[in-house]
């Protein structure tokens, strides 16, 4: 099925009509989610700050999920020459970077009332920071290489190495954290999540996912149009030279 989708025309034919519905679904999910976020009770330990979790955790999940998607798409693009996969990876990157930055920002805002500092060098925040650097590096490499085919190949290699290294980095950061035990022992999502809080979290997570898919489809389409533009441009100037 994946190779069946490699044809950009076919991909656009299938997904362009679906796209608006996904966008609407995302918007509806956000509305419902926001209602649930504020209708849910305060946490007896964290008070109202627990509501920040409903933003922070889905953002963090997406940050990691998008990188996984980028890595897999890069793999298909590089190893199996799946032409749409390169586009998919490139399109996903800025969205993932935005989610990562958001998760860092909300994490900081959650941490301040909880732990008293604007930033806590614990295992998770530090790993997410490194993940953010991965995204920035990926986008910087794409921007630095002019030839599109080569840019796709090089960034694919980078994304795949990044994916392989992420667990190692996460492990090393956690190891580092236990070594320097000054860090706070309070787990950011509390001992366990009460069912009252699970619903807003899941709905917001779904909202984030749907938004990602919608944005991703929009950006893929933009990139495909850019490719057609470049190809048409090249054909036109070639024809002109022939006359």
């Amino acid at each position, binding site marked *: 099925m994946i190779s069946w989708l490699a044809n950009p025309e076919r991909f656009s034919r299938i997904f362009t009509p679906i796209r608006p519905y996904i966008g609407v679904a995302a918007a509806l999910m956000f509305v419902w989610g926001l209602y649930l976020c504020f209708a849910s009770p305060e946490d007896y330990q964290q008070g109202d700050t627990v509501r920040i979790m409903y*933003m922070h955790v889905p953002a963090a999940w997406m940050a990691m999920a998008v990188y996984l998607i980028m890595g897999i798409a890069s793999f298909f693009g590089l190893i199996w020459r799946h032409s749409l996969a390169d586009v998919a990876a490139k399109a996903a990157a800025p969205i993932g970077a935005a989610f990562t930055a958001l998760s860092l920002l909300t994490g900081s805002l959650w941490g301040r009332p909880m732990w008293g500092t604007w930033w806590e060098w614990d295992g998770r925040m530090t790993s997410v920071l490194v993940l953010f650097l991965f995204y920035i590096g990926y986008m910087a490499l794409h921007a630095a290489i002019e030839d599109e085919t080569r840019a796709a190949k090089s960034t694919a290699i980078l994304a795949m190495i990044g994916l392989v290294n992420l667990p190692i980095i996460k492990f090393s950061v956690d190891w580092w954290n236990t070594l320097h035990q000054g860090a706070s022992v309070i787990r950011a999502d509390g001992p366990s999540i009460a069912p009252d809080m699970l619903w807003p979290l899941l709905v917001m997570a779904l909202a984030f996912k749907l938004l990602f898919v919608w944005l991703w489809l929009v950006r893929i389409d933009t990139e495909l149009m850019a490719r057609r533009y470049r190809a048409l441009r090249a054909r036109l100037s070639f024809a002109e030279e022939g006359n």
Partner: protein
Amino acid sequence: MLDLDMGKYVVYVWGSYGATALTLIALTVASVAAHRAQKRKLNALQDESRQP
């Protein structure tokens, strides 16, 4: 029903929701604007190519 009083955590909670809204809206606007701009460019070039 809707608990909108955040007490002393106002800055943090509304700050987070505000930042989220800002980021996601900005991302959406940027993506859609780029999409439209590219579509315009492509259509213009396609029209140009059809003229003799």
